[in-house]
Protein backbone atom coordinates (compact mmCIF):
# COMPACT_ATOMS: atom_id res chain seq x y z
CA UNK A 1 0.00 0.00 0.00
CA UNK A 2 1.25 3.53 -0.68
CA UNK A 3 2.41 5.78 2.10
CA UNK A 4 -0.57 8.09 1.48
CA UNK A 5 -3.05 5.24 1.74
CA UNK A 6 -1.35 3.98 4.88
CA UNK A 7 -1.64 7.42 6.43
CA UNK A 8 -5.31 7.49 5.51
CA UNK A 9 -5.74 4.01 6.95
CA UNK A 10 -4.07 5.11 10.15
CA UNK A 11 -6.16 8.26 10.43
CA UNK A 12 -9.56 6.81 9.51
CA UNK A 13 -9.40 3.12 10.34
CA UNK A 14 -6.82 2.58 13.07
CA UNK A 15 -8.39 5.44 15.02
CA UNK A 16 -11.40 3.16 15.54
CA UNK A 17 -9.37 0.56 17.43
CA UNK A 18 -10.88 1.30 20.87
CA UNK A 19 -14.41 0.92 19.42
CA UNK A 20 -13.51 -2.33 17.68
CA UNK A 21 -11.81 -3.62 20.83
CA UNK A 22 -14.97 -2.94 22.83
CA UNK A 23 -17.15 -4.60 20.18
CA UNK A 24 -14.83 -7.63 19.96
CA UNK A 25 -14.85 -7.97 23.74
CA UNK A 26 -18.64 -7.92 23.75
CA UNK A 27 -18.72 -10.85 21.33
CA UNK A 28 -15.75 -12.91 22.45
CA UNK A 29 -16.23 -12.54 26.18
CA UNK A 30 -12.65 -13.60 26.86
CA UNK A 31 -10.03 -10.84 26.57
CA UNK A 32 -7.43 -12.95 24.81
CA UNK A 33 -9.96 -14.16 22.20
CA UNK A 34 -11.08 -10.55 21.79
CA UNK A 35 -7.51 -9.42 21.09
CA UNK A 36 -7.13 -12.14 18.42
CA UNK A 37 -10.37 -10.94 16.91
CA UNK A 38 -9.24 -7.31 16.86
CA UNK A 39 -5.93 -8.19 15.24
CA UNK A 40 -7.58 -10.31 12.54
CA UNK A 41 -10.15 -7.57 11.90
CA UNK A 42 -7.49 -4.93 11.27
CA UNK A 43 -5.40 -7.26 9.14
CA UNK A 44 -8.39 -8.00 6.93
CA UNK A 45 -9.31 -4.32 6.86
CA UNK A 46 -5.78 -3.42 5.77
CA UNK A 47 -5.73 -6.08 3.06
CA UNK A 48 -9.17 -5.07 1.85
CA UNK A 49 -8.77 -1.31 2.26
CA UNK A 50 -9.13 -0.85 -1.50
CA UNK A 51 -12.77 -1.98 -1.12
CA UNK A 52 -13.50 0.74 1.45
CA UNK A 53 -15.51 3.46 -0.22
CA UNK A 54 -14.76 7.10 0.56
CA UNK A 55 -17.63 8.51 2.57
CA UNK A 56 -18.42 5.21 4.30
CA UNK A 57 -18.25 5.11 8.07
CA UNK A 58 -15.03 3.21 8.95
CA UNK A 59 -16.30 2.13 12.37
CA UNK A 60 -19.33 0.37 10.89
CA UNK A 61 -17.17 -1.20 8.16
CA UNK A 62 -14.87 -2.57 10.88
CA UNK A 63 -17.77 -3.85 12.99
CA UNK A 64 -19.03 -5.77 9.96
CA UNK A 65 -15.61 -7.32 9.35
CA UNK A 66 -15.21 -8.10 13.03
CA UNK A 67 -18.54 -9.88 13.20
CA UNK A 68 -17.73 -11.91 10.06
CA UNK A 69 -14.38 -12.95 11.53
CA UNK A 70 -16.06 -13.92 14.76
CA UNK A 71 -18.70 -16.03 13.00
CA UNK A 72 -16.10 -17.70 10.86
CA UNK A 73 -13.89 -18.43 13.86
CA UNK A 74 -16.67 -19.88 15.91
CA UNK A 75 -18.63 -21.38 13.02
CA UNK A 76 -21.77 -20.09 14.61
CA UNK A 77 -23.52 -18.68 11.60
CA UNK A 78 -26.41 -21.07 12.12
CA UNK A 79 -26.98 -19.78 15.61
CA UNK A 80 -27.36 -16.25 14.32
CA UNK A 81 -30.17 -17.18 11.99
CA UNK A 82 -31.93 -19.28 14.63
CA UNK A 83 -32.39 -16.24 16.80
CA UNK A 84 -34.32 -14.40 14.11
CA UNK A 85 -37.43 -16.11 15.49
CA UNK A 86 -37.93 -13.66 18.33
CA UNK A 87 -41.12 -12.19 19.66
CA UNK A 88 -42.24 -9.02 17.92
CA UNK A 89 -40.69 -5.75 19.17
CA UNK A 90 -43.98 -4.50 20.69
CA UNK A 91 -44.36 -7.52 22.96
CA UNK A 92 -40.69 -7.26 23.99
CA UNK A 93 -41.30 -3.63 24.93
CA UNK A 94 -44.48 -4.50 26.85
CA UNK A 95 -42.60 -7.15 28.83
CA UNK A 96 -40.15 -4.46 29.99
CA UNK A 97 -43.07 -2.30 31.09
CA UNK A 98 -44.73 -5.22 32.94
CA UNK A 99 -41.37 -5.88 34.61
CA UNK A 100 -41.33 -2.29 35.81
CA UNK A 101 -44.90 -2.56 37.13
CA UNK A 102 -43.91 -5.65 39.16
CA UNK A 103 -40.81 -3.83 40.42
CA UNK A 104 -42.94 -0.86 41.49
CA UNK A 105 -45.00 -3.33 43.52
CA UNK A 106 -42.12 -4.97 45.40
CA UNK A 107 -40.15 -1.73 45.91
CA UNK A 108 -37.13 -2.75 43.83
CA UNK A 109 -37.82 -0.04 41.23
CA UNK A 110 -37.55 2.76 43.79
CA UNK A 111 -34.50 1.10 45.35
CA UNK A 112 -32.87 0.91 41.94
CA UNK A 113 -33.53 4.64 41.46
CA UNK A 114 -31.26 5.49 44.35
CA UNK A 115 -28.48 2.99 43.58
CA UNK A 116 -25.23 3.31 41.68
CA UNK A 117 -25.68 0.66 39.01
CA UNK A 118 -22.29 1.01 37.35
CA UNK A 119 -20.70 -1.92 39.19
CA UNK A 120 -23.53 -4.19 38.05
CA UNK A 121 -23.93 -3.02 34.47
CA UNK A 122 -20.71 -4.35 32.95
CA UNK A 123 -21.39 -7.81 34.36
CA UNK A 124 -25.02 -7.71 33.27
CA UNK A 125 -24.04 -6.82 29.69
CA UNK A 126 -21.39 -9.55 29.66
CA UNK A 127 -23.99 -12.10 30.79
CA UNK A 128 -26.40 -11.34 27.92
CA UNK A 129 -26.69 -14.00 25.22
CA UNK A 130 -24.43 -13.10 22.31
CA UNK A 131 -26.95 -11.76 19.80
CA UNK A 132 -28.64 -9.50 22.33
CA UNK A 133 -25.29 -8.36 23.69
CA UNK A 134 -24.08 -7.37 20.22
CA UNK A 135 -27.19 -5.30 19.64
CA UNK A 136 -26.97 -3.53 23.01
CA UNK A 137 -23.31 -2.75 22.34
CA UNK A 138 -23.92 -1.41 18.83
CA UNK A 139 -26.94 0.74 19.66
CA UNK A 140 -26.50 1.70 23.31
CA UNK A 141 -22.73 1.80 23.66
CA UNK A 142 -21.63 2.68 20.13
CA UNK A 143 -24.60 4.92 19.37
CA UNK A 144 -25.65 3.37 16.05
CA UNK A 145 -29.20 3.98 14.81
CA UNK A 146 -31.48 0.99 14.17
CA UNK A 147 -30.83 1.27 10.44
CA UNK A 148 -27.05 1.52 10.87
CA UNK A 149 -27.02 -1.52 13.18
CA UNK A 150 -29.12 -3.46 10.65
CA UNK A 151 -26.72 -2.59 7.81
CA UNK A 152 -23.67 -3.42 9.94
CA UNK A 153 -24.99 -6.87 10.84
CA UNK A 154 -26.83 -7.58 7.60
CA UNK A 155 -30.17 -8.16 9.32
CA UNK A 156 -33.59 -6.50 8.94
CA UNK A 157 -34.39 -3.47 11.13
CA UNK A 158 -37.16 -5.52 12.77
CA UNK A 159 -34.53 -7.99 13.99
CA UNK A 160 -32.52 -5.10 15.45
CA UNK A 161 -35.60 -3.97 17.37
CA UNK A 162 -36.47 -7.46 18.67
CA UNK A 163 -32.94 -8.30 19.78
CA UNK A 164 -32.26 -4.87 21.24
CA UNK A 165 -35.50 -4.76 23.21
CA UNK A 166 -35.01 -8.32 24.46
CA UNK A 167 -31.44 -7.45 25.49
CA UNK A 168 -32.62 -4.38 27.37
CA UNK A 169 -35.37 -6.33 29.09
CA UNK A 170 -32.87 -8.95 30.24
CA UNK A 171 -30.60 -6.17 31.50
CA UNK A 172 -33.53 -4.60 33.33
CA UNK A 173 -34.33 -7.94 34.99
CA UNK A 174 -30.72 -8.43 36.06
CA UNK A 175 -30.41 -4.93 37.47
CA UNK A 176 -33.70 -5.24 39.35
CA UNK A 177 -32.45 -8.51 40.83
CA UNK A 178 -29.28 -6.64 41.84
CA UNK A 179 -31.47 -3.99 43.54
CA UNK A 180 -33.58 -6.66 45.30
CA UNK A 181 -30.48 -8.49 46.54
CA UNK A 182 -28.96 -5.24 47.78
CA UNK A 183 -32.23 -4.50 49.62
CA UNK A 184 -32.23 -7.95 51.23
CA UNK A 185 -28.61 -7.53 52.31
CA UNK A 186 -29.25 -4.18 53.96
CA UNK A 187 -32.41 -5.51 55.64
CA UNK A 188 -30.47 -8.51 56.97
CA UNK A 189 -27.71 -6.21 58.21
CA UNK A 190 -30.33 -4.05 59.97
CA UNK A 191 -31.92 -7.14 61.59
CA UNK A 192 -28.57 -8.25 62.96
CA UNK A 193 -27.35 -4.84 64.10
CA UNK A 194 -27.20 -4.40 67.89
CA UNK A 195 -30.04 -2.23 69.19
CA UNK A 196 -28.93 0.89 70.99
CA UNK A 197 -29.01 0.54 74.74
CA UNK A 198 -29.16 -3.26 74.59
CA UNK A 199 -26.97 -4.98 77.14
Amino acid at each position, binding site marked *: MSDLRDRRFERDVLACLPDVARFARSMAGDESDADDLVQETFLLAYRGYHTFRAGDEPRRWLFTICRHVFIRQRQRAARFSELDELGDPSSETMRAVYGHIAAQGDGSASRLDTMDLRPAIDGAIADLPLDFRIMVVLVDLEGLS*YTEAAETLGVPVGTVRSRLYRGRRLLQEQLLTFARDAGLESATARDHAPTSGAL
Partner: protein
Amino acid sequence: MTPSPIDCRTAAERLWEYLDHELPDGPLEELEVHLRACAECTPHFAFAARLLRDIRGARSNDRQTEGIQSRVLGALRAEGFMAAHS
Protein backbone atom coordinates in the same frame (compact mmCIF):
# COMPACT_ATOMS: atom_id res chain seq x y z
CA MET B 1 -54.10 19.20 13.31
CA THR B 2 -54.59 17.58 16.73
CA PRO B 3 -52.99 14.13 16.93
CA SER B 4 -55.31 11.18 17.49
CA PRO B 5 -55.52 10.05 21.08
CA ILE B 6 -53.73 6.81 21.90
CA ASP B 7 -54.25 4.46 24.84
CA CYS B 8 -51.67 3.48 27.46
CA ARG B 9 -50.79 0.20 25.77
CA THR B 10 -50.03 1.89 22.45
CA ALA B 11 -47.99 4.49 24.31
CA ALA B 12 -46.02 1.81 26.18
CA GLU B 13 -45.33 -0.10 22.97
CA ARG B 14 -43.54 2.98 21.65
CA LEU B 15 -41.32 3.35 24.72
CA TRP B 16 -37.95 2.26 23.30
CA GLU B 17 -38.44 3.86 19.90
CA TYR B 18 -39.28 7.12 21.66
CA LEU B 19 -36.21 7.00 23.90
CA ASP B 20 -34.03 6.06 20.92
CA HIS B 21 -35.40 8.99 18.84
CA GLU B 22 -36.59 6.49 16.24
CA LEU B 23 -40.30 7.39 16.23
CA PRO B 24 -41.69 9.06 13.10
CA ASP B 25 -43.27 12.52 13.59
CA GLY B 26 -46.94 11.46 13.70
CA PRO B 27 -46.63 8.70 16.33
CA LEU B 28 -44.17 10.89 18.26
CA GLU B 29 -46.68 13.71 18.51
CA GLU B 30 -49.43 11.30 19.59
CA LEU B 31 -47.18 9.89 22.28
CA GLU B 32 -46.08 13.27 23.60
CA VAL B 33 -49.71 14.39 23.92
CA HIS B 34 -50.49 11.16 25.80
CA LEU B 35 -47.50 11.50 28.14
CA ARG B 36 -48.40 15.07 29.04
CA ALA B 37 -51.79 13.87 30.26
CA CYS B 38 -51.11 10.38 31.65
CA ALA B 39 -49.70 10.00 35.15
CA GLU B 40 -49.67 6.19 34.79
CA CYS B 41 -47.30 6.03 31.82
CA THR B 42 -44.83 8.73 32.82
CA PRO B 43 -43.01 6.66 35.51
CA HIS B 44 -42.42 3.80 33.03
CA PHE B 45 -40.75 6.18 30.60
CA ALA B 46 -38.71 7.84 33.34
CA PHE B 47 -37.57 4.45 34.64
CA ALA B 48 -36.58 3.22 31.17
CA ALA B 49 -34.79 6.50 30.42
CA ARG B 50 -32.74 6.16 33.61
CA LEU B 51 -31.91 2.56 32.76
CA LEU B 52 -30.72 3.57 29.29
CA ARG B 53 -28.60 6.40 30.70
CA ASP B 54 -26.88 3.94 33.01
CA ILE B 55 -26.33 1.36 30.27
CA ARG B 56 -24.93 4.01 27.94
CA GLY B 57 -22.69 5.24 30.75
CA ALA B 58 -21.01 1.83 30.76
CA ARG B 59 -19.12 2.98 27.68
CA SER B 60 -16.93 5.16 29.88
CA ASN B 61 -15.51 2.00 31.46
CA ASP B 62 -13.40 1.32 28.38
CA ARG B 63 -10.72 -1.27 28.61
CA GLN B 64 -7.18 -0.16 28.06
CA THR B 65 -6.20 -0.60 24.44
CA GLU B 66 -2.47 0.17 24.45
CA GLY B 67 -1.49 -3.52 24.48
CA ILE B 68 -3.72 -4.55 21.60
CA GLN B 69 -2.83 -1.37 19.71
CA SER B 70 0.88 -2.23 19.60
CA ARG B 71 0.02 -5.84 18.73
CA VAL B 72 -2.16 -4.72 15.80
CA LEU B 73 0.50 -2.29 14.60
CA GLY B 74 3.09 -5.07 14.73
CA ALA B 75 0.87 -7.34 12.63
CA LEU B 76 0.17 -4.53 10.15
CA ARG B 77 3.88 -3.73 9.82
CA ALA B 78 4.49 -7.34 8.90
CA GLU B 79 2.00 -6.73 6.05
CA GLY B 80 3.95 -3.67 4.90
CA PHE B 81 2.10 -0.94 6.78
CA MET B 82 4.29 2.15 6.98
CA ALA B 83 2.29 5.08 8.32
CA ALA B 84 4.22 7.79 10.12
CA HIS B 85 3.21 6.99 13.67
CA SER B 86 3.61 3.27 13.45
